């Protein structure tokens, strides 16, 4: 009985080691499996994953219109004060005052890419972009205003 256990121990040990060697041997003989990105060289063809979170951006359409209502939900959701929404009051054609965004100030150097602002946004005005080349020589360049100058809110978004 002891001998049987002993032999099965040896057999199981060797076969599990061989299983591992088979896997690594497969990788060794299949160079196409190599996943290394040679980054600065392949910059033109670099494909970032869809889920990659590099910075917060506000998409604008061709009429320079965005979807931000200036509700400050993102500012409230942000755990470390990265976003500051400066609001203003637009006068609508009917003569009523309406709250709108003046500047959505985004400070990249404070951002942890936690995605909470994007989740909080009720009108999907902001999203995460896959850019990652953020280095600049001046720290003040990391403070960005996300809405473009002269942009306005798209029709029909409340």
């Amino acid at each position, binding site marked *: 009985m002891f001998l049987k256990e002993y032999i099965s*121990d*040896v057999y199981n040990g060797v076969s599990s*080691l061989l299983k*591992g*060697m088979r*896997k*690594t*041997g497969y*990788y*060794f003989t299949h*160079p196409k*499996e*190599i*996943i*290394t990105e*040679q980054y600065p060289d392949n910059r033109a063809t670099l494909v970032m994953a869809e889920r990659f979170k590099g910075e917060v951006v506000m998409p604008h359409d061709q009429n320079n219109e965005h979807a931000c209502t200036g509700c400050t939900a993102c500012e409230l959701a942000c755990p470390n004060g990265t976003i500051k929404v400066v609001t203003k009051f637009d006068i609508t054609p009917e003569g009523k005052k309406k709250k709108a965004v003046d500047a959505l100030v985004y400070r990249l150097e404070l951002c942890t890419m936690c995605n909470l602002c994007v989740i909080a946004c009720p009108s999907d005005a902001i999203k995460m972009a896959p850019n990652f080349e953020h280095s600049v020589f001046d720290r003040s360049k990391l403070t960005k205003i996300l809405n473009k100058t002269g942009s306005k809110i798209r029709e029909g978004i409340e």
Partner: protein
Amino acid sequence: MFSLEGITSTIQDWLFFKFNPTLALAIECVIVILLAIALFAALGLILVLMERKVAARIQIRLGPNRVGPGGIFQTAADTLKLIMKEGLTPDKADKFLFNLAPFIVMMVAMLLLAPIAFAKNFQIWDINIGVLYISAISSLSVIGILMAGWASNNKYSLLGAMRSGAQIVSYELSAGFAVLTIVVLTGSLQISEIVAAQQNGWWIFKGHIPAIIAFVLYIIAVTAETNRAPFDLAEAESELTAGFHTEYSGMKFALFFLAEYINIFIVCAIGATLFLGGWMPLHIGNWQGFNHIMDFIPSSIWFMGKTFFLIFLIMWFRWTFPRLRVDQLLNLEWKYLLPISLFNLLLVAVIAILGWHF
């Protein structure tokens, strides 16, 4: 046809023709020393690069690829860096032993080079107890390692050295038994005779299953003896920073590093000699045509090919298996490898006496 034998005999004839025998012998010694050092340097560069490339491929990476085409000058650049670095000696270290240790480790590696047959009739010293000499000398390297660990005055170094000592002492046994199986089959300790006995087939084929078991045991045991993963407890990076060579820097560190790779080369060369026929080409029974074609490949290429195949195997182990704990290490040796190798030796003795091998 290219052969190293021709070159050496030409040089010897010329030396003995030009000078008196004593001087000629002295000059030959100098040439051998220079060749050994050149081989060491070249092997160090090639094996480190090979290791890094193999590791990269196994881990789905690219490995060094910036210095020179495909990164082939990477190790040369590393060596240059190490030469230019300062060789520090810790303040409270035993200065003499500390500085002596890397040279002892290196010297042991150099001594082991003597009986290895690199090609047909191309051997530094064809001693009649070659195999015994190798097992005797190879266990000396533990002295250098213990010396380094003790003299460093560092707990990590000492722990690493002690582990290495325990490991080499235990695994020497099964390596010795694996070597003995071939000695039993051949009936000689001389390297050249062991190679000559494999004229009509390598021992791994001729010796049936016991020879294969002995080969596997040998590979496991020498992996442990050279302190390589999965038996690299002596320098386990995650626990002991670098084990016995934690305190070494610059060229002295490079010597330890080089000695490790030279030791791998040597144990693989011995493995190739014992089990895979050394420089003997692959011969299959009575296939005259096939055997003749195989004879056309120079014997040095056969030897290097087999040795590098074994080196690749050991590198493959290193990048596949996780490190053993020290109790698992000793369990493996004393509970599994040693009984199996003893039983295997008995089996081989029966086979050799009854003449069951080819």
